[in-house]
């Protein structure tokens, strides 16, 4: 019994090209569901359709087992937080928070009670008399959240709510929103283009590109077993290194004409079905040779010292690959560096269909080492 159900949802403007094409997914009650994708992928449109601000061109949208395709937004019992916060500039913080309640004709006593609770929860008690322009970005964001909280709607929609904040504040608000959602048991649909936000906040993530669902799943599943090349390169930072594989003979294959690997039984199997193979490897899987024998030697073109980790850039036959090593490494750019790459950590994709053939294996030994 799912809370929100989308069946073959399609959206197009003026009978042109479809912006969203046959979208199917469900959201459970109390779930933190993230819609992520590059700009223009249709994620905001999808959210606005759930809110009732856009018409559904085709398909069925259900909430609580009821078809709500033509229900106006106010009858869908939801709250929404906008990217620009949509605060009323002429009203004080208090009036802004209570705005929706007045429209819904909640009693004055109840309004007062909810206002007090919400303001305390969001740390806004001292700012209730101020106008939005007298607040900082983070405080405005909190007012927008308070407005959603005070409505006590079981479903909350958020459209890139953090993209106007600076990096530090964003990290803090991420935690706050997550905590709020758990505390109130909200069902939350969250739209973002930032994969870090998606990974850190979502119970489940849906990756959208060009109006089509790429993959739906838990953050860690998307990271470990990306369904296709798009998800593989979209999720994870720095992004997954991608190279073209070429089989030289029966015993080994070459990636980007530089890195040679032995052909294992799995790959042999895969090669029978798929003509061209693209290989992906996560930056943390190009490892230093402290625990292992060196397998390859790569030319370092850039080194970024972050203090707790070191990001290295390699030149692999004209393409830039990155590696992320924990700790501090004294490496100079321009040198050849010996690294360890296990064949186990390679993900294989079909070059034509871009679909996953075999995911990388993340066995327990590696997890421990990563810590």
């Amino acid at each position: 019994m799912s809370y929100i159900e989308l069946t073959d949802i399609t959206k197009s403007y003026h009978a042109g090209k479809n912006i969203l094409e046959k979208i199917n997914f469900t959201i459970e009650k109390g779930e933190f569901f993230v819609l992520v994708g590059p700009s223009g992928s249709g994620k905001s449109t999808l959210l606005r359709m759930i809110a009732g601000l856009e018409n559904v061109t085709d398909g069925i949208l259900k909430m609580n087992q009821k078809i709500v395709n033509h229900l106006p937004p106010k009858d869908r019992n939801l709250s929404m937080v906008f990217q620009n916060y949509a605060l009323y500039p002429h009203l004080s913080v208090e009036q802004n928070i209570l705005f929706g309640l007045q429209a819904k004709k909640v009693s004055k006593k109840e309004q007062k009670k909810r206002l007090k609770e919400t303001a305390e929860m969001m740390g806004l008690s001292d700012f209730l008399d101020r106008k939005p322009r007298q607040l900082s970005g983070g405080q405005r964001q909190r007012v927008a959240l308070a407005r959603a909280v005070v409505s006590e709607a079981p479903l909350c929609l958020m459209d890139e709510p953090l993209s106007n904040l600076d990096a530090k504040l964003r990290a803090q608000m991420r935690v706050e929103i997550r905590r709020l959602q758990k505390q109130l048991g909200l069902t939350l649909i969250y739209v973002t283009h930032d994969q870090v936000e998606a990974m850190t906040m979502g119970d489940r993530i849906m990756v959208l590109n060009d109006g089509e669902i790429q993959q739906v799943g838990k953050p860690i599943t998307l990271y470990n077993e990306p369904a296709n090349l798009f998800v593989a390169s979209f999720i994870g930072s720095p992004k997954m290194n991608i190279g073209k594989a070429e089989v030289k003979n029966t015993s080994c294959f070459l990636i980007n004409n530089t890195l040679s690997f032995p052909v294992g039984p799995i790959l042999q199997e895969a090669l029978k079905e798929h003509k061209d193979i693209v290989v992906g490897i996560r930056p943390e899987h190009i490892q230093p040779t402290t625990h292992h024998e060196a397998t390859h030697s790569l030319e370092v073109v850039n080194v970024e010292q972050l203090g707790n980790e070191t990001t290295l850039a390699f030149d692999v036959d004209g393409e830039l690959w990155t590696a992320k090593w924990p700790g501090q490494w004294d490496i100079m750019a321009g040198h050849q560096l010996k690294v360890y790459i296990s064949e186990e950590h390679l993900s294989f994709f079909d070059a034509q269909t871009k679909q996953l053939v075999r995911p990388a294996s993340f066995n327990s030994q590696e997890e421990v080492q990563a810590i």
Partner: protein
Amino acid sequence: MRIPLGRKIVTYFLLSTAALLVFMPTLMAVVMSFMTNQDIMTGSFPSAFSLDNYRRAFEQFSLMHYVINSLFVSIIIMIGQLVLSSLAAYAFVFLEFKGRDFLFYLFIATMMVPFEASIIPNFHTIRDLGWIDQYTGLTVPFFAMAFGTFLLRQNFKQIPKELREASQIAGMGEVKFYLTVVLPVAKTSLITLGVYGFLTSWNMYLWPLLATTNDSVRTVQIGLRQLQSQEQMNDWGMIMSGAVIVIIPTLILLFLGQKKLQRGLTEGALK
């Protein structure tokens, strides 16, 4: 930028002369309104300061009656324009309907038709309605205003769409949104438009002249004109004192709202 002293002197001299030339008629009117008739007729400089002209303007000529008529007509036109323009602008910005943009362009295209061109059909209309010598005849034809709609539309467009959407989700209807959000947010532009509409109708001459046949609803501009007569000698002192009183509201509004008026009028144009 530093301007050389010589050029500064020349520039300021030219500016002052031009300003004096432009302001001369007004200055003369003000000075003449305080002069005795004898001084005016002989064309000499004022020899005595007198408020006699003002007293006579109010007593003999019932200036107050005309001023009140003007005030009433101007305020009604201003309110009518604000209500209709803001409602039309709201529709052009927040309501979505087929042919909206076309209708809007048609709407502002009427700005190209001068008022004088529509004066005869307008006159026919109010005559057939029996609105001659009525306040309705003086005011209603000016309620619909393409410029005001245009000005407010540009201003409303700057209100983020999300505000409308947020209130939609909160369950607020169009009318309530218009009253509680759009109007307060667009306050500056409404004031600008109000002042503009008030001054324009205050200074109106041709239409009140056509639409009235007696003094009952006549505005002050027509009244002033009636002070000048062809047969008798004109009482210039009284005419000038009337004129000075007529320009007072304009001056007050300009001094108070100069900055705001300018900002409001250019706001839409700059974007």
